[in-house]
């Protein structure tokens, strides 16, 4: 059984929108040229490949299957659980739950424990982990074992990459849209990604590569699951913000007069309220509402999903003002241009004028803003979750990981892996998005051409 949450649709909307942009730009020369520029830029291609990889993981995590749990006796239970395709792929990581903290690649627990050995003697030792390194007969072989497994993974990764290249060579002509430099950059990035995935896949079932957290859950699994949350926040907020910004911005610039006054008043008022406070106020209100209407949100998943959806809507409502202001200024300029005046003189209707002549000429601004805002939103999620006005505490997110690991920094010995994992993943996604945004801006900025 396939189930769909509201936020899943956001991920798919993001993919469909991406495909639409590709399909739409292929036919139009003025759009194809800047995109080709992006593909010819090695930083552009590399960051795009990484972003697509994140998107793939997010998409896999959004296809949810409902199925009956298997009981220990082998029969199917009456209760159903919902797992995403990603969950199924990551089954070894998901199911290998330890008792509590353990270091990356550890075979022993983080803290000493009282235990009774077979001879009946009570001792104060580091108990061995249930899953991490459990296949080792002699713990001193651990480093050798890790190296062997990693090399095996690396070998498989390289082989898989060669396989990919062979199939590409056999079945398609490499230079259909982009020249070979772009493709080769993309393939080299893929080599790194595939090798990394292969190494992790080889080690994952035997060790906790990034350790485990307080309740013994694999940190790598948490970090991977958080990708979807980051993507949803970026995508859904844009979906909410874009129509408001475009419609109001174009109207204010095009109609001027009282329409302009009203819209200007609207965005001055909204942007004058400190963003965090507006979000906090709205989330507080939503919490009160949810507390008073528990019957509307039956499962924890529903609640968390609703909160994520709401957070994105509020972020969308607070973030349209910047783009709206830009679009208004640009529309004011465009409406006085000769070709628009000529079209108006020829009797083209106002709606047609906006659609045909104004909108296409401000699309570069929209494009640049979307890509620039994305990374800011991913970072904002972490901060908001820290103040407890972000995503639901039960949702996997980097913000929640950082939030919980803050206290772990004060422990002795220090628990650093949760925090590090969240930052590495977040940094990779945001850096790729920022670099991509930079290349896109350079390519689409009419002044640079």
């Amino acid at each position, binding site marked *: 059984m396939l189930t769909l949450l509201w936020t899943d649709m956001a991920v798919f909307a993001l993919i469909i929108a991406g495909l639409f942009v590709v399909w739409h730009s292929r036919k139009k020369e003025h759009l194809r040229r800047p995109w080709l520029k992006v593909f010819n830029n090695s930083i552009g291609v590399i960051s795009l490949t990484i972003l697509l990889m994140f998107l793939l993981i997010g998409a896999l995590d959004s296809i949810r299957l409902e199925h009956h749990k298997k009981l220990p006796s082998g029969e199917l239970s009456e209760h159903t659980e919902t797992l995403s395709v990603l969950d199924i792929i990551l089954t070894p990581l998901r199911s290998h739950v330890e008792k509590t903290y353990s270091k990356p690649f550890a075979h022993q627990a983080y803290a000493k424990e009282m235990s009774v050995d077979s001879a009946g003697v009570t001792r104060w030792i580091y108990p061995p982990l249930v899953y991490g390194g459990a296949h080792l007969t002699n713990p001193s072989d651990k480093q050798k074992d890790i190296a062997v497994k990693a090399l095996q993974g690396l070998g498989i990764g390289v082989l898989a990459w060669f396989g990919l290249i062979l199939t590409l060579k056999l079945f398609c002509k490499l230079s259909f849209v982009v020249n070979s430099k772009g493709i080769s950059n993309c393939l080299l990035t893929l080599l790194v990604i595939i090798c990394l995935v292969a190494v992790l896949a080889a080690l994952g079932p035997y060790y906790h590569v990034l350790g485990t957290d307080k309740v013994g859950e694999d940190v790598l699994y948490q970090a991977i699951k958080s990708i979807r949350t980051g993507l949803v926040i970026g995508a859904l907020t844009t979906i909410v913000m874009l129509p408001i910004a475009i419609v109001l911005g174009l109207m204010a610039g095009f109609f001027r007069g009282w329409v302009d006054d009203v819209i200007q*008043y609207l965005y*001055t*008022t*909204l*942007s*004058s*309220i*400190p963003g*965090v*406070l*507006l979000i*906090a*106020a*709205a989330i*507080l*209100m939503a*919490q*009160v*509402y949810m*507390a*008073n209407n528990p019957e509307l949100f039956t499962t924890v998943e529903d609640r968390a999903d609703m909160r994520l959806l709401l957070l994105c809507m509020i972020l969308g409502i607070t973030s349209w003002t910047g783009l709206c202001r830009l679009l208004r200024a640009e529309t004011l300029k465009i409406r006085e241009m000769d070709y628009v005046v000529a079209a108006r003189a020829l009797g083209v209707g106002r709606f047609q004028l906006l659609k045909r002549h104004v909108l296409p000429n401000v699309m570069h601004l929209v494009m640049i803003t979307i890509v620039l805002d994305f*990374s800011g939103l991913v*970072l904002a999620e*972490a*901060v908001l979750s*820290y*103040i*407890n*006005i972000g995503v639901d505490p039960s949702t996997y997110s*980097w913000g929640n990981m*950082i939030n919980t690991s*803050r206290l772990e*920094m004060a422990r002795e010995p*220090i628990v650093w892996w949760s*925090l590090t994992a969240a*930052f590495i993943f*977040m*940094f990779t996604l*945001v*850096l790729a*998005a*920022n*670099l991509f945004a*930079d290349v896109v801006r350079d390519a689409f900025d009419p002044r640079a051409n």
Partner: protein
Amino acid sequence: MINYIIRRLLYVLPVLVGVNILTFVLFFVVNTPDDMARMQLGDKHVTQAAVDNWKQQRGYDLPLLWNEQEKGLQQLSKTIFFEKSVGLFVFDLGVSDSGRDIVADISQRMWPSLAIAIPSLIFGVLVNITFALLLIFYRGSILEFGGLFLCIALMSISGLFYIIAGQYFVGKLLALTPISGYAPGMDAFKFILLPVLIGVVGGLGSGVRWYRTLFLEEAAKDYVRTAKAKGLSEIEVLFKHVLKNAMIPILTGIVVILPLLFMGSLITESFFGIPGLGSYTIDAISSQDFAIVRSMVFLGSFLYIIGLLMTDISYTLVDPRVRLD
């Protein structure tokens, strides 16, 4: 000039009214005071009497917009809207839900916020401008490319990381500064050192890029080319011409955020345990004190609008070509 300022001040009013209505709708209409009382008193097992009592203590037992039991003007004034929202216009912020005077709290907590915000701003601007000028000076070299990449990398790191890493390395490992806390007077120095440092480093990436664009725009102008053609050295051009002329957008960019410095930084203050307005707001959010959040929203919007006004005025002061009528 005076006319312009008066006109702009009048324009501020409708915006503040808008903010007020928006917060009123958010805090009192979407959820009634009854809902708030239940939430505060603990969801399910609350008697109506306890709710009424809670509301009466905090003055939430009035009708929202229209009081039918009163006569004349009192019909309007004995309402939640009038008592809780209109008072904000004369900065009568009332008492918080826990019974403390909000104005007194704010005037006391403002100073620690400023003690962090002002040095962060000054050092931040100086450091950013220095690095931006260096990038311009080494334009087209590998140094610029590396610098720009570093800027993007710095921008991609979450602000939380700077704080946590700073507290761990500077505060805990090296033990140069206290990890968190605050003391009034001159003792505050050692407590604000680390937050200011982190504030400067955290803003470096985006700041340097922003100033670089300003300088690049200025450096592309004709008079710069003329100056170079006349034989001025690169350094002379940068400092005597580019920097001087770029001061206009730099100054006006700073003026707009000056009033907001009072609000403090939410994250920094709560991480470092500084009793400023930022941590005040965070505490209010987490203890769900609606009266404080409402006051801070109003104060924040007011300061933002004042900032916009000051920017417009400062344009006329630094750039004689701009006239406001």
